[in-house]
């Protein structure tokens, strides 16, 4: 047996490492290597090398310091109001939810032991026994009823009030059983309950600044806009977790300052670093990147009710997706095919290919639409990440074939209420959602509140309803595949790429896996990582 490997590069290491992080078994890896022509005998050497980054025996102890990217006086520990990564990280450390999305995008049980339904309309959740809050009280079904029902109260200001509106009735059957009746069948409930907003809090809580939950950490200090410090929950119900003794989280808004703080050794992890800094981090020893594509995207919206259909089609051919990834995103992106379900989602339609960059074809459509020679306003803003760079790329491509795109850059403040959804051609930015149903209901159904291109199709609406209550997965996949094709071909939302998130971390941090929900291991890194001394 030989350990000598030829044609093996650093990027192959990264590929294998990524596969291991995503949960690939030894057998999967051997397949991957056979496919790339590496002799099987060398397999063990590669596996050993790449997995040293992710495997190893957890060590307990240590103070973990991580910096997110935004924090203000609006920071909150109320899961219903949580609105950004900083809030989510804190909520994931203090509380638990009924279900949680695992590394491969599948919901697993957390506070619920079982979540069952025969018709996808009436669900029964059986709660885990022996779970206690930080103050010693036991978890009961009343807490779950309270925690879910409060999203329906408008004075709470819940971010997910729209999603919670489908809860018709939530009642405690006995201290460890909750019955959730939905307005209509929805097979996605296990995904929905895994949203950070549906964390379980104690019945009757009004003051959330104490952060009392059942989660891996207890709150020590919380200063909105400054920082939070948490201590390990000694009575945590998950055996052996968390590994670290304490967890400090704050935000460094300035991109460069965040990277500098990491490189200077002041923090262990800098979340979501700017693509401009990735090279710098990679070139320093002792630091690495954890990349995950979670389905966040910036898209160009062309309202179908204000533009000719030929123009919309032409624009889809005028988008140079590869250039957008390589220049606007500096390589940190996966190519998109004009529909919102990214490869991070189990329902992604991999057979649907992105449209080629084809200026001649685009010109043909523009001639048909009669738009050449006119000045066409395109609204862009820094409010939607990378939208300004993307607009420049499309404008240049248009100029080459005589299409005059008048790119107007407007301020971030007020962009979402003034321009987004309203301007005839504008950019949007959509955060990942857990299920196709939520994406489609929110963005593409005829009555969708954020129908960015005013796409309306009775057939699509019918399919959406049909798939929603369907427990048969094969059938469901088929319907969702077709719906993705319909959006890609007919809607006016051009989604050139799904943006890759890169967290930069010290190599002392071990056990950080990727999660399709978001960076920082789906916001719950503190529960799982350990620090090498």
């Amino acid at each position, binding site marked *: 047996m030989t350990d000598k490997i030829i044609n093996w590069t650093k990027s192959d290491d990264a590929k294998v490492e990524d596969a291991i992080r995503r949960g690939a078994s030894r057998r999967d890896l051997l397949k991957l290597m056979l496919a790339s022509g590496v002799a099987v005998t060398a397999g063990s050497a590669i596996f050993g090398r790449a997995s040293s980054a992710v495997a190893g025996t957890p060590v307990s102890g240590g103070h973990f310091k991580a910096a997110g990217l935004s924090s*203000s006086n609006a920071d909150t520990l109320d899961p219903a109001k949580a609105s950004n990564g900083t809030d989510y990280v804190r909520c994931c450390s203090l509380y638990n939810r009924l279900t949680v999305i695992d590394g491969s995008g599948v919901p697993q049980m957390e506070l619920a032991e079982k979540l069952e339904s025969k018709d996808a309309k009436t669900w029964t959740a059986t709660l885990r026994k022996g779970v206690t809050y930080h103050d010693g009280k036991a978890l009961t079904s009343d807490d779950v009823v309270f925690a879910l029902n409060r999203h329906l109260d408008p004075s709470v*200001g819940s971010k997910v009030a729209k999603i919670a509106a489908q809860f018709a009735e939530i009642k405690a059957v006995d201290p460890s059983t909750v019955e959730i009746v939905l307005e209509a069948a929805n097979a996605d409930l296990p995904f929905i309950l895994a949203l950070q907003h549906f964390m379980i809090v104690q019945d009757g809580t009004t003051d959330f600044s104490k952060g009392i939950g059942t989660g891996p950490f207890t709150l020590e200090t919380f200063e909105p806009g*400054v920082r939070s410090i948490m201590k390990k929950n000694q009575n945590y119900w998950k055996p052996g977790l968390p590994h670290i003794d304490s967890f400090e989280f704050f935000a460094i808004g300035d991109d460069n300052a965040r990277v500098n703080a990491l490189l200077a050794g002041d923090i262990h992890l800098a979340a979501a670093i700017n693509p401009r800094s990735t090279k710098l981090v990679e070139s320093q020893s002792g630091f690495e990147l954890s990349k995950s594509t979670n389905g966040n995207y910036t898209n160009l919206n062309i309202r179908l009710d204000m533009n000719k259909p030929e123009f919309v089609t032409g624009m889809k051919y005028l988008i140079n997706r590869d250039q957008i990834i390589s220049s606007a995103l500096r390589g940190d992106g996966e190519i998109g095919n004009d529909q919102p379900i990214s490869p991070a989602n189990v329902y992604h339609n991999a057979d649907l290919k992105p449209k080629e960059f084809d200026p001649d074809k685009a010109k043909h459509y523009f001639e048909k639409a009669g738009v050449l020679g006119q000045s066409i306003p395109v609204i862009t803003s820094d409010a939607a990440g990378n939208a300004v760079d993307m607009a420049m790329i499309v404008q240049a491509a248009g100029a080459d074939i005589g299409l005059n795109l008048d790119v107007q850059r407007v301020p971030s403040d*007020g962009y979402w209420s003034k321009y987004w959804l309203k301007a005839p051609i504008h950019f949007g930015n959509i955060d990942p959602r857990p299920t196709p149903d939520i994406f489609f209901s929110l963005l593409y159904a005829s009555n969708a509140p954020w129908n960015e291109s005013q796409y309306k199709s009775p057939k699509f609406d019918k399919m959406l309803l049909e798939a929603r209550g369907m427990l048969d997965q094969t059938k469901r996949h088929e319907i969702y595949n077709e719906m993705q094709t319909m959006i890609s071909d007919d809607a006016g939302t051009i989604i050139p790429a799904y943006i890759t998130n890169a967290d930069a971390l010290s190599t002392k941090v071990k056990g950080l896996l990727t999660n399709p929900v978001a960076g920082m291991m789906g916001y719950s890194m503190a529960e799982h990582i350990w620090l090498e001394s």
Partner: protein
Amino acid sequence: MNSEIGRLILKRLGIAIITLVIVSFAVFFTTNMLPGDTATILLGQAATPEAVAGLREAMHLNDPAITRFFHWAFGFVTGDLGKSYANNMEISTLIGNRFLNTLELAAITTVIAVPFALTLGITSAVARGSLYDRIVTVLTIGVISVPEFVIASTAVLIFAVYLRWLPAISFVNEIHSVSDMLRMYAMPVVTLTFVVSAQIIRMTRAAVIETLDTPYVEMALLKGASRSRMVLRHALPNALGPIVNALALSLSYLIGGVIIIETIFNYPGIAKLMVDAVATRDLPLIQTCAVIFCAGYLILITIADIIAIISNPRLRK
């Protein structure tokens, strides 16, 4: 002389109160004119009409603007700063620590920057036209011209990232010893010292040179006064007026205007708090910060005027 100063302080106090009322009124109504309110901003993209209406109701945002203003003003006068719209915490809790941090940074910078700047300003005025004077002038103009974020970022790159002598960000909550304090404050204080001293040096130099040219200084010279006596006893007291005013302006900047330093060093001060408050349209918080900045400015300017009067024999009568 004492009655003169007493009258001045009383007059200043009256003006200060009127100014504070006008400023808080103006800040309140200009903030009200910004698009959106706390409810729409907190809900962000999730702002459906029903959700916004519900949250507005809960936050009492539906009361007329004037009612909310008087509610805040009455509370402020009686010592109750109210609660933040954005997170429902007491404003005094939110501001308390951060205001202390700001004062701490301002105080340390003042202690270092003022003697440093005065010494350089006075000595370069005395040695007017010499090589030393020219070097000081070129350096101060250089520092005025380079924006502070360039100085700060370069310092971070050199001292934190490459040399690793100092932390890249200021963990002011983790100061346990004098050496911690020196390490944490080194870069922010040095950067701020550069920014504020440059102005003071220029102003001091100009004012001292002007008085050195006056007939009474020439008289002192003819009487045979020593060089130091001539400068410190005869020239400086008469130049002090403009110098303390320049000092007051620079120091008031340290209270409200150090947003760039706070951002780069992630220093939890009050300037960033006010910027966040404006972004979330958190009126009670904006108001309180505005009053603090305004009061700080007025206090410093009044002190500067009093010093100018006491030091200047002619103003003293």
